[in-house]
């Protein structure tokens, strides 16, 4: 089965996510004066992720691809919004958005991987998927460091938004090519 399109689009997602993640943690830490406040922001992320998963669950089988596209669009908007955040409440709000997107991305990615593989022949494909997404993350995080040093953390947020937008488009294009299987 052909899952190259999934691996490619999700490698772009990990490129976008891997680029931002470690620096995003630093950014959040600088917002609060305490680790407890920092912890709270992450708790909100997990709560929204858990809650949204239950809303997605009954729709996942039918609308996997749409949900995957939506997660990338949501992350793109969150990345565009971060540089303009001026209060902790906004951070909490964006954590809610990002928690929801994370649930959508993780669940639809797993579904599509399962849908496009067969029991007994999944190992190689899952291995490939993990390899390419991890390697993308590695390149991204090195690039991210240089981008912040050269420009600013905001430039990193914008670049990440661009990549999320691109991954949404890549998945959407596949869906148009074959609305049923996505291939």
């Amino acid at each position: 089965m052909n899952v190259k399109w999934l691996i490619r689009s999700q490698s772009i997602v990990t490129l976008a996510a891997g680029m931002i993640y470690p620096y995003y943690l630093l950014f959040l830490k600088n917002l609060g004066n305490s680790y407890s406040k920092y912890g709270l922001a992450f708790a909100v992320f997990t709560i929204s992720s858990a809650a949204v998963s239950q809303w997605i669950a009954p729709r996942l089988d039918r609308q996997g691809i749409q949900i995957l596209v939506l997660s990338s669009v949501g992350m793109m908007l969150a990345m565009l919004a971060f540089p303009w955040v001026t209060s902790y409440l906004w951070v909490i709000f964006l954590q809610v958005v990002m928690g929801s997107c994370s649930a959508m991305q993780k669940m639809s990615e797993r579904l599509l991987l399962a849908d496009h593989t067969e029991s007994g022949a999944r190992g190689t494909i899952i291995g490939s998927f993990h390899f390419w997404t991890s390697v993308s993350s590695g390149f991204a995080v090195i690039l991210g460091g240089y981008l912040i040093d050269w420009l600013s953390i905001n430039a990193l947020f914008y670049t990440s938004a661009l990549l999320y937008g691109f991954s949404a488009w890549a998945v959407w294009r596949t869906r148009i090519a074959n609305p049923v299987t996505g291939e």
Partner: protein
Amino acid sequence: MKKGVTLFLLVALCFVNYRILDTRDQDPFLITDYSRLHPVKVERVVEGKEEEQLLHIIKEARDKNLTVSIAGQRHSQGGHTFYKDGIVVDMTHYKKIISFDPAAKIIRVQAGATWKDIQDTVNPYGLSVKIMQSQNIFTVGGSISINAHGRDIRNGSLIKSVESFRLLNTNGEIIQVSRTENADLFPLVLGGYGLFGIILDVTLTLTEDEIYRMTSDAMTVDEYSKYFLNQVKSNKDIHMHYARISVAPDRFLTDMYAINYTVDKAVPLNEHNALKATEDWVIPTKLLFHFNRSFSWGKNMFWDLQTRFFSTQQNTVISRNNAMRSESEFMEYRGVGKNDLLQEYFIPVDQFADFVHHFKTILQQENMNLLNITVRYVNQDEEATLSYAKEDMFALVCLFNVPLTDQEQQAFKKGIQQIIDEAIRHRGTYYLPYVAYPSLEQFQAVYPRYGEFFEKKDQYDPEHLFMNYFYEQYKGG
């Protein structure tokens, strides 16, 4: 195969990165200051939080024969804020506003409070800081220790706005210092680079916030002194002023533009005094400044763009508090093995043009990468023992991009010493918070009261509890 090549590429990239980043200025386990030069191991860095705790640190340092260095934002660049194997007291968390009396226009703050903290407190009451640097990120304690100056041309240097402060001295006593109490210490601690004790809190006098109209004028270096005396200094309504000299190769050290802030009482303050919280256009301006740093065409482009920008800003209305929180983010620089370092020369008004001509020759001969020169005006003020304003002077604040290797530093030092010789020849002085490039002889020529300063240091702190590299490099004898 494809996977193997990709993984190899990633590993190779990490390896190359490790080699590039393996320089002394990037060592996270050593302490240095903004310059990233001469990093050393210290005993520990302690965040100052409570008076009791600070007393305890002094006692511990005395008992264990350790030295104490005092740090604010660590923007001093000559090792003023740390010393090998000593304790570094980081005062940036000791930052409460202790009291504020709007009617008397007086504020008392802990030494780690920044100018921004003060501006945020006093702005709603229509008040403003009298003298500070052009950016508001610095701590009050640090600014006092370097006797800072800024764009205000009517209020002198920072020492003028300081009423009193409390000092934690080498014996672990807290004493009040003002022009009447322990008065001997007042001119020593102000511009004393942390050698006489820990400044705990400071009482400052404030002034009215007001509305300015910003205007800009273009002129040449030769015309500037006359322009300043006839059109700026003599116009009592101009309260703030600064100028820039072109570093663009096409107009190298010939063209200038000046920005004046003229009081406009007709505009109501409350319509324009909301404090600006964020910096605009950081990404494009930072990119442009990178070009300015790296290429000749970048310098030409940056100069053209800034002169064009300021000509579109004629008559812009701005509150004093907003004018005193100038942008800084776009100049942040984290180049590995290289850094942007400041140097500052004070030149008497009548000597300005001639000094700049000689300065230009040295810069060209020594091939120094100068990124920006801002000119401010400081009134004569000799109250501080290590005073730089021996007469009414222009301060030339020069930002250089410099490689940090020992060899390149030696070459740069040679150039800086030639510039200081020229400054001295023009009855000028240089500023002490920056890297210790000037020779001991140059320091002694520029600061003739050095003997008195160090004698008093020995008298007030005979065991040299408070220690830094400024003392070590310039004590002499």
